[in-house]
């Protein structure tokens, strides 16, 4: 009973926040609503017994992605009022596409073969995290490794597109620092007492 109540709570908060993300006038508010969305989605994952994914969602999406969004939204000098001007002319098109998608979703719902019972996580001795680890590093090793390569390419791409070599920057030259000897830079002077250096 309490689970059902929790489900409806999380689901309705999620939907309301998702609507608020696209309706909010201030883009910063949109991002904050997005964070609330992530939290409610994480709650739904906990209800499904997938606590690892719930935590990852909070750590990665709330902790990193959403904060990044916030930074970008606040740092970019874009007038969102100007962007929004003229957006109304696309409303009929958007509504049309939305309608088509709705009809498709309805067809999908009708086409579902039979009412299969809801699959819940098996309550075995294996922990959620351990179960994921077991398949990611065995059955899905290939996809996991290629995902790593994709991230590598993304890193190279970000550097290629944004890194600029500026000659006027003072850089730390570790080799030169290590090569420095006391005799190069230190001079010991005898200072006789009574007179200055």
């Amino acid at each position: 009973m309490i689970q059902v109540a929790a489900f409806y709570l999380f689901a309705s908060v999620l939907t309301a926040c998702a609507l608020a993300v696209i309706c909010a006038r201030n883009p910063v508010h949109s991002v904050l609503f997005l964070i609330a969305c992530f939290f409610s989605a994480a709650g739904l994952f906990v209800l499904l017994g997938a606590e690892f994914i719930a935590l990852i969602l909070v750590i990665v999406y709330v902790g990193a992605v959403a904060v990044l969004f916030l930074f970008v939204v606040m740092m970019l000098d874009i007038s969102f009022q100007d962007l929004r001007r003229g957006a109304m002319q696309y409303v009929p098109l958007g509504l049309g596409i939305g309608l088509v998608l709705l009809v498709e979703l309805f067809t999908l719902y009708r086409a579902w073969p039979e009412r299969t019972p809801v699959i819940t996580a098996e309550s075995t001795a294996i922990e959620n995290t351990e179960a994921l680890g077991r398949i990611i590093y065995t059955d899905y090793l290939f996809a996991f490794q290629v995902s790593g390569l994709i991230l590598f390419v993304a890193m190279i791409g970000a550097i290629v597109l944004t890194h600029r070599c500026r000659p006027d920057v003072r850089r730390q030259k570790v080799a030169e620092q290590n090569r420095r000897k006391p005799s190069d830079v230190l001079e010991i002077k005898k200072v006789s007492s009574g007179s200055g250096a």
Partner: protein
Amino acid sequence: MMPVFSWASLSPALPELFLVMLGMVMVLAGLSQSEGAARSLCRVAIGGFALALMMLLGVNWDSAPVMNGMFVMDHFAGFMKLLILLGLMAAVALSVRYLEQEEIDRFEYPILIVFAGLGMMLMVSAHNLLAMYVGLELQSLSLYVLAAFRRNHSKSSEAGMKYFVLGALASGMLLFGASLVYGYTGALGFDAISHALAGGKAGAGLVIGLVFLLVGLAFKVSAVPFHMWTPDVYEGAPTSVTALFAIVPKIAAMGLLMRLLTEPFGSIMPEWQQVVWVLSLASMAVGAFAGLVQNNIKRLLAYSSIGNMGYALVGVAAGTASGMGAVILYLAIYMIMAAGTFGIVLSMRRGGRAYEDIEDLSGLSRTNPLMAWTLAFLMFSMSGIPPLAGFFGKLFIFQAAIASQFYVLAVLGVLCSVVAAYYYLRVIKVMFFDDPLDALDSDLGFSLRAVVFLSIAFVLFFIFSPDTLVETSRNAAAALFAG
């Protein structure tokens, strides 16, 4: 119980493993070298692709799927990878000098091409929806960066941005389709999906999933109506990158499409044939008619590639082994013609500046007859004039379509190719009958000359021994229908 692992079980993926290593070593080498790294790494990349090609020829082309059924190496994958590696070598060879001339010779360029090539090879070997997606994404991400490689140039940045946004949308569609297919069949592996579909009729949900998968892939092969990015990206990207786009990625995307449609969804062929039919006809028509009004040669070749993908899709729509064999042959011939044509586009320079309009070729037959004749034969071949290679590609495609009783598609396809012949012939008219402009720079470089020479030799002499290539592509296609 832990399954026993042996390195030998990974041997079908040897060329891919080698390319991963090559890419990483190239990153380290590029970082430790300051001057002229791009040029030497381009050579390393060409050598690496050649080595991977040798490994590919040494690998057993009849292996069972490895890595938990995610990666398969059959005759189809083998031949497609052969084409991809050859295309990559040509694309890198065409770029070496161009990069220096345009002062974008940064060492990441060949590295990104290596990773893009790796993604393409994984795509044609994918045997699981997940493996398909990661391969596709590896390839696409590298290509987005390459499109924006000339980052100080607004058109190049725009091309990269457009390609990225639309490509991301396409990936989203593909994933949505994959999730529906997973939901209605309960499987990600191609074998398991085809097992789940065997005999039974597909429900509406699965068909919607399949259509979304097709939409995602149609973006990647730039089939109409998902072609909008192609002309802008081709025009904006640095010309050597445009050459790469025209030569290789479409082979991989088309290969993935063919495997996806025949292996997991082979039993519900009528469901996808109609979609491919529409895509194919629309691509041929738009490729032919929109090309008529182009003045920029890169945009012209973009529409030409859209049209050519339309012809290739005719063979896919046929849905038979001979149809797929014709598609493979068509892709091989198109790749070689595109390599030669872009070699000439890359050498359209006067006084160190690149020119891109068709008018810039005016009177080329008097200032540089050899180049003019070469481009003329390539254009004749592209438009499908008989003794040249391009004719045979189209011939086998339309034969297969007629054998599968797609008469309307075949007739409309031939009509479209007549329309498209106009713009190919217009290039020839400009070269031979217009007033000559100043001569083009003659300093072309060995690698570019070699690519153009090999391409034109293939186009001219294909007719004397077509059997090898035709047989190989038939065998490759037969592997798709073996399982």
